[in-house]
Each structure stands twice: as structure tokens, then as C-alpha cells.
């Protein structure tokens, strides 16, 4: 190609690109096809786990929620033809759409809805325990699920719009979401294909490729806010992720706790402060109390931990720390073994004494009230140490919520925070804020109240 030809060809290709863009923007019919690449952390399985932001996004692609809460607060559903609250019988009636199917074509019926709801209510989640307190019983007919409440509760539908309440199939290989897993190449990528039976209507895209490496440039990724990227739009997800160090057995000495805490703080320092220091249980900006845990010196840390044989369990959702943390611990010459475990595995271990030290993470939506967040931490992160005292504190917090006194509410939040820290089973470590970055060529990616990108109506400009 001559030098003269090149600018002409570039101009021509620019013109063609523009013409194509105009064509696509104004083309009357939505285009079905194409693939979007999204970079997320590799999951360990397809068992629902919404512990971190990456998982929250991934599982929203393959599992359908009962209800969706849009950014503006509006509720929507794809699985129910109708839902109404009968005040007389204090019953929420959910009518399932006709002829729904899971991704493998197996019927999705009222029975699946009932079972899924019961599974959710059986979890250790704060949202589930809140709902549990309200529900008297759950019945079903051919195409309806009736949720009878103990008392009139007009807010019941919005309580069902939580990311963890999804429609499960009896078979693990069928999925209710807009996409279903088709091909998983470990450590590389996971291809999700459009679910032809998706209750909300088949997505425009043919596939979403979830990539786990940096080998190919993604169209969508999660990163710290204001990580300016050319050709990408940044969306404030409102999501932050907190990392805590938990001690599940009561016999851990204070010195060991402080030494491990200091060591992990050092790890953050050594890796260039990738995470924001966290001095509260929720977020420093909203918490009425600031927690100051005194770090101890490197030498003292080393001498305390030298004789210890520590197994540090880390939730699989934090697996991206593995490489750096292993290297750091190796350099420190300490006998600390790191073991990555699934949420479900950890729940099984709780009744044994196998786990003492755990690194966990929790994600929060900024917009959710502080009292809700502190309740979640107390309920979901105290594990086997949850006791009557905490239950009473939660009850008191609930009462104060209805007192319409912000001062009293803050006081109660502060009291709970102090109690948790003084009881010494959870130490806040770090925080990471997230923005969602979407390539300009990707259109109509909706973002819901929980900061999840919704790809059902998304499309990508054809190359």
C-alpha cells in the first residue's frame, strides 16, 4: 500500500464506520446476535453466591430474580403474570406466567417458585431472616404461589426484590436467567449463551463471554472509580466491597488477632495500597463510630506469629488476592497457610473447630441505609457466634428505626459496632469502591438498583 493510499483508505474506513454506526442507530429492527465480553472473577461453581460485586454480576446473568428493583425504585418482574396483595387475607398472590421454561426446556412452574423462596428463607442472609419473621406460610396452586403474612405488610414485594432471591431449577444444569453456561475453559473464560426460553424474552445478544484474564480486551469490566479509559463510559455502581478478618473461635488470643490484623495491613501497604483502609464496619463516611485498632510493629508481629501455625481461610470470592498474598506471606517467612473455600463449604465447617481465621468480604450498595448494613454484618458475619445478645440488639435496632429519631438510630448503630468490635470476632480491614465501565459500542446496558448491568436488551455495534 502506498503512503498516498493509506490516508484515503483510513478516511474511507472511517466513513464506512460512521455510515454503519448511523445505519445501526437508525435501523428500525433490533439486531439479534453478537457477543459482549465482560471481565469478572472466575467462579468456583454455578451455585449462587453473591458475596462480591463480580459474583453479583455473574449470577444475575444465569439466575432470574423474582423481582427487579430499577434504579429509579420501580419494581418489575419477568416470571409473574400478575402479583397482588390481598389485604383481607394478608396474602401476596404471585401468578406465574404460562408456559415458562428453564434454559434446558424443562417447565418452570409455581412449584419452582415455592421451592426457591423456601431455599432463600433457609439461608443465613439478613434479608431472608427479615422476610422469615413476616411470613406465616407459603402455599401454591397450579400457577400461583400464595405468601400469607402474619400482619399486613405493604412493603412485601420490595422485600422480594433482593439479588439473592432467584428462581432455581430442580436440576443444577438448567438456569432461569437470560443466559446459561455453555462452555467453561478454566482460568480463561466462560461462554454464556442466550437462554431461548428466558421469561423476559430472549436477549438480543447471542452470547456473553466472561473472561478471567487480561489476554483480551473486555467490553465491560469493574474497576475503581475514575479509572479513565478511552472508548469506555463509566457508571457509578454505588457498590463497595468491605474485607474483614474474622475469628470464628473464642480462644484466639488478642495478641494473635492484632498480629494477623497488622500483617494484613502490611500486605496492603506492600502491594501499593490497592485497597482503602477501613475504620468502620460499613463505610467511614456514614458510620457514627470510628474503629481504631492499633497495629503492632513488624518485628512484634513476626515474633507473635512465628510460633503459631495459622491456617487462614479465605472466601473464594477473594481468590484474586491469592497470588499477591501468597508471595507476601512467603517473603515474611511465617507459617501461615492460605486456603480458599466456597461460601457453602464454609457453612459446613462452621460446626467444627476446623476454621479459626477467615478473610471474608461483603458488598454493600451505598444507597442502602446504614442500619440495614450493620444488621447484615451482625447477622451474616458473626457466624457461629451469633447469640441472644445480638438478636436483642437487632430487635432494638428495628424498634429504633420506627421511632423516627435519627439520633437514637445512630446511637444504636454505634452501640452495635462497639459491641461487635469489643467482642473481637470481626476486624474491618479494607474497602474497595467500584464503577462499571462499558465500551461505547455496547448499547442499552441497563443498570439496576443493586448496580448490576442488565444485558437483556443490550447490543453491540456490529464489526
Amino acid at each position, binding site marked *: 500500500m502506498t503512503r498516498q493510499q493509506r490516508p484515503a483508505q483510513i478516511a474511507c474506513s472511517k466513513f464506512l464506520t460512521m455510515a454503519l454506526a448511523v445505519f445501526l*442507530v*437508525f*435501523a*428500525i*429492527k*433490533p*439486531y*439479534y446476535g453478537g457477543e459482549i465480553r465482560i471481565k469478572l472473577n472466575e467462579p468456583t461453581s454455578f451455585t449462587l453466591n453473591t458475596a462480591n460485586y463480580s459474583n453479583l454480576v455473574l449470577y444475575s446473568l444465569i439466575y432470574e430474580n423474582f423481582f427487579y428493583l430499577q434504579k429509579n425504585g420501580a419494581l418489575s418482574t*419477568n416470571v409473574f403474570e400478575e402479583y397482588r396483595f390481598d389485604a383481607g387475607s394478608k396474602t401476596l398472590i404471585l401468578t406465574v*406466567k*404460562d*408456559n*415458562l*421454561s428453564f434454559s434446558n*426446556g424443562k*417447565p418452570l412452574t409455581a412449584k419452582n417458585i415455592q421451592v426457591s423462596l423456601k431455599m432463600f428463607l433457609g439461608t443465613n442472609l439478613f434479608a431472608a431472616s427479615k422476610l422469615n419473621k413476616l411470613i406465616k406460610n407459603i402455599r401454591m396452586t397450579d400457577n400461583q404461589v400464595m405468601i400469607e403474612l402474619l400482619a399486613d405488610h405493604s412493603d412485601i414485594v420490595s422485600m422480594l426484590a433482593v439479588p439473592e432471591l432467584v428462581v432455581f431449577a430442580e436440576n443444577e444444569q438448567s438456569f432461569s436467567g437470560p443466559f446459561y453456561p455453555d462452555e467453561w475453559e478454566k482460568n480463561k473464560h466462560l461462554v454464556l449463551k442466550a437462554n*431461548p*426460553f*428466558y*421469561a*423476559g*424474552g*430472549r436477549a*438480543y445478544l447471542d452470547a456473553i463471554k466472561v473472561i478471567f484474564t487480561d489476554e483480551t480486551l473486555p467490553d465491560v469490566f469493574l474497576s475503581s472509580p475514575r479509572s479513565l479509559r478511552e472508548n469506555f463510559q463509566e457508571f457509578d455502581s454505588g457498590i463497595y466491597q468491605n474485607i474483614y478478618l474474622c475469628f470464628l473461635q473464642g480462644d484466639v488470643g488478642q495478641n494473635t488477632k492484632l498480629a494477623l490484623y497488622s500483617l494484613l495491613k502490611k500486605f496492603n501497604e506492600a502491594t501499593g495500597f490497592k485497597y482503602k483502609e477501613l475504620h468502620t464496619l460499613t463505610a467511614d463516611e456514614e458510620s457514627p463510630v470510628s474503629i481504631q485498632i492499633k497495629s503492632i510493629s513488624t518485628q512484634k508481629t513476626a515474633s507473635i506469629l512465628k510460633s503459631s501455625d495459622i491456617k487462614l481461610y479465605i472466601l473464594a470470592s477473594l481468590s484474586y488476592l491469592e497470588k499477591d498474598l501468597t508471595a507476601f506471606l512467603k517473603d515474611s517467612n511465617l507459617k501461615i497457610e492460605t486456603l480458599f473455600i466456597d461460601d457453602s463449604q464454609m457453612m459446613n465447617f462452621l460446626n467444627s473447630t476446623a476454621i479459626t481465621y477467615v478473610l471474608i468480604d461483603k458488598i454493600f450498595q451505598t444507597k442502602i441505609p446504614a442500619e440495614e448494613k450493620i444488621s447484615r454484618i451482625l447477622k451474616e458475619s458473626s457466624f457461629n457466634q451469633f447469640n441472644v445478645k445480638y438478636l436483642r440488639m437487632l430487635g432494638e435496632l428495628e424498634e429504633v428505626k420506627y421511632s423516627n429519631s435519627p439520633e437514637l438510630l445512630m446511637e444504636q448503630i454505634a452501640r452495635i459496632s462497639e459491641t461487635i468490635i469489643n467482642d473481637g470476632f470481626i476486624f474491618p480491614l479494607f474497602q474497595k469502591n467500584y464503577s462499571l465501565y462499558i465500551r461505547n459500542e455496547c448499547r442499552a446496558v441497563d443498570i439496576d438498583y443493586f448496580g448490576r448491568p442488565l444485558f*437483556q*436488551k443490550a447490543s453491540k455495534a456490529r464489526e
Partner: protein
Amino acid sequence: MKKGMRLLLILFLFPCAAFPQSSAESLVQEAADHVQAFFKNKTAARVAVVQFENYSELTDLAMQKVYQMLTARLENDTNIKAADLLLNFANGRGEFNKSKLNELDYLLYLKIIQNKSKTGLGMAIFSRWQDKLVSITYAEKNISAGEMEFLNVANFAFPELGFARLSEFESKKDLLDVQSITGADGSARYFFFYPDEIIIYAAREDRLEKQSAIKLKWSRPFYPALHRQGKLLIFPFNQSLVMTAGGNFSSYAQVLTLTNDQWLETAKVNFVPCKQIVFNQGLYLAGARYEEGRNYFKDRIYLLPFSDPIDNSGTVEKKTFPAYDIDFSTQEGQLQGIHLIDRNYQYHLLTADFAEKTPEVNKKGASLAASDGQWLAVSDYSRQADQLFFYDIKAGGQRPVYTGKVPGEIQFISAGTWQTVKGFWVCCRLSQDNYGRSMLQFWGKRHD
């Protein structure tokens, strides 16, 4: 609107273009005069333009107007029996129905040439019987830039004489198709197809009155779709009426038969019938199959011999293209052509033996419907300025004749009849309507 403004400005700046005898018109008149002089002493000479080439700045559209002016003049001459064989004008050349050549006595060759300052029209008359050129004429005029622009402006014809919107109704969400039947007493029934029901209306003056509704029950596999589409077909069979209804949400179409004044589901067809056609003296259902849950048809056409009971194993497949829309035009029940819009919005015409006619690059659309073998309506393929184009397909060709603006986005077009006028139902979604309602219009030729 912009085009309208452009036209007004041109009229204002170049008043000569609006005067009755423009340069182009006098050029055409000279050519017509020459033809008339040539045929002065002849009787009922069968004449047609069979070749028309353009070597000027004039667009294909302008050439079509020049052609229309010339044929209009020739048709007024009592000594000539002028035939109109133009199928289309594209890429500077007229495309003519050459199958009629042996019905002619004289053939006319036309050529428009442009030199530095003038535009010329050359004409040759060829005698088929003498097998030689018998006359040649050439005239040239100075066609101003304004007149040239005026000729190139895209108005096809006078709407009041052509297709116009005759009626308009509002419909609830998800209207998929409209069909009608006329009873022995002349009263018409209109069938509105929604995914879950078919509502039957009767016309009362300019209104539609609901008569009854048929609830539709679908079974698995069922494919929920973001944009539901479907086709309805009604036809008489064995002294009864049969209706087929299918869409992109189901892998089969329902066949309903009118029995004792009740529509009952009697069979299932494994594709979506679009039209009933006569083929080898038997009745066939012709249609296609949607990509499940999506807004386009697969790359196959299906033909099923219609019988009672239906035997789906007799279905014949023909390969075509994945298509946003598809329709079959018929002449006296026989398949005349298959019209389809592919996923690049390109229009394709297949002949009755499923061979593709040479595709034309500039012919695009989104939805279409064929009304018998007479007219083809095609919607534009852009969201901002949706409009309808009506093509005269009588001679099997594709000649755009009328156009009309439509508010909102056209969802589907289907051929139909409204109060004895044949035409097209056009359903469009109003972008500002939050409830997803549609506007249904009927377009027809008032004077037909």
C-alpha cells in the same frame, strides 16, 4: 418536512421549473411529437419503450418522471396502442418486461445525454416486422440546475390519486396481524391477532365493533420474545373457514376451523403460514418459520399441501435467506413471486420457481406485504422517518409508484380490504406511547 422545504425553496428560486412547460417537459414533448408524427398515418400500432438509458446528472427517480411524462403523452394518441413495460429504473437504466416484446409492432429506444450546457433526449424507433431502425430523433434543451434538482426531488406521484390513509384505529399492545373476510351477504369481519387472542370485529361506518374473541392457548416449547411477531391467515376450505395463527413465540402455528359458529383448534402446522396458494391444482399453505424468540424468519420457505387432516410430513422446504419479513404474491391463486427483506434490510424477489431475480442494491425495507399480484407495500428501514412505499407489481416487476409518511415505527404491513377497497393494513408503534399501544391504519386507493 426537510424535503418539502427544499422543494418550496427550489420553486421559489427557480420559478421556471414550476411553470407548465419546463425544459424537461418540452424535451419530452418534442420526442412525443416525433413519435406522433411518425405514427400519424398508422392505426393501432403497438408501441412501447423497451430501452431507456441515462448519461446525465438526472437520478433514476427523475428518469422515471421523464418516462411517465412520455408514456402519458403517447397513451393519449389514438393511433398508438402504447404499452407500459417498465419494471424498474436503477443504476441509470430502465428495466423492462421483455417477455411482452413479441406483442409489439414498434420498439422505442431512449437515451438521455448531457453535454457541457445542455441535456438531450435521443430516440430511435425500431420496427419489429421490418427488423430495422425506422426513425431517429434527437432534441436538446438547457435544463437549468434548479429544474434538474426539481426533477430529482423524491416525490413519486400525487397522493390523492394513489395510496392514501383511509382509516385509522388505535389498538392495544402486541397486535401481530389483521385479516378480514367478506360473508355471502357482503358484510366484512376483521380479525385482529394478538398473542393470546383473536378479536373479531365488524365494521360500522368508520368504526369497528367487537363481535367476539377467540382465546389462544399455546403449549411448550414456548419462546418468550421481546418483540412478538406473527401472521394470521384465513381462507375457505370445504364449505368452511380455516384460520392459521403462528408467531415467533411458538414452534407451531394453530389451525382453527369454524365449526357450528365456533372456532376450534383442529391441527398444528410446523411453520407460520403466510398465504394459501394453488400449486399443481392443489391448495398449499406457504410460509416460513421464525427464529424462536427473535424478530426474523429462518432461511427456509415451507409449502404444505393443505388437507383434512393435515399431514405435516408432506411439507416441502426451499432455501432462501433469513428474513425480517416475507410475503407471497399470487395471481389467480397461483404463486407469482416471493418478496422478502433480509437481515441487512435488502429487498429480494424470488420467482415462482424460487429463483432469485437479480438483487438491487438500493432496494431496501423493513416490513412488507403483497396485495394479490397488484401491489407491494414496503416500509422504510429507518426509525426516524418511517414511511411506506407502494410498488406496482402487476407485471412481476418492482416499480415504486406512491409513498406516504407514517407516524412512529411500522411494526407490520398486511394486505387487506377495508369497506370494499383493497389495500394494506399498516400497524405502527407510537414512540411517545408508554403503554405500547399501536396505531393501525388502512392504506388504499380511494378510486379503485
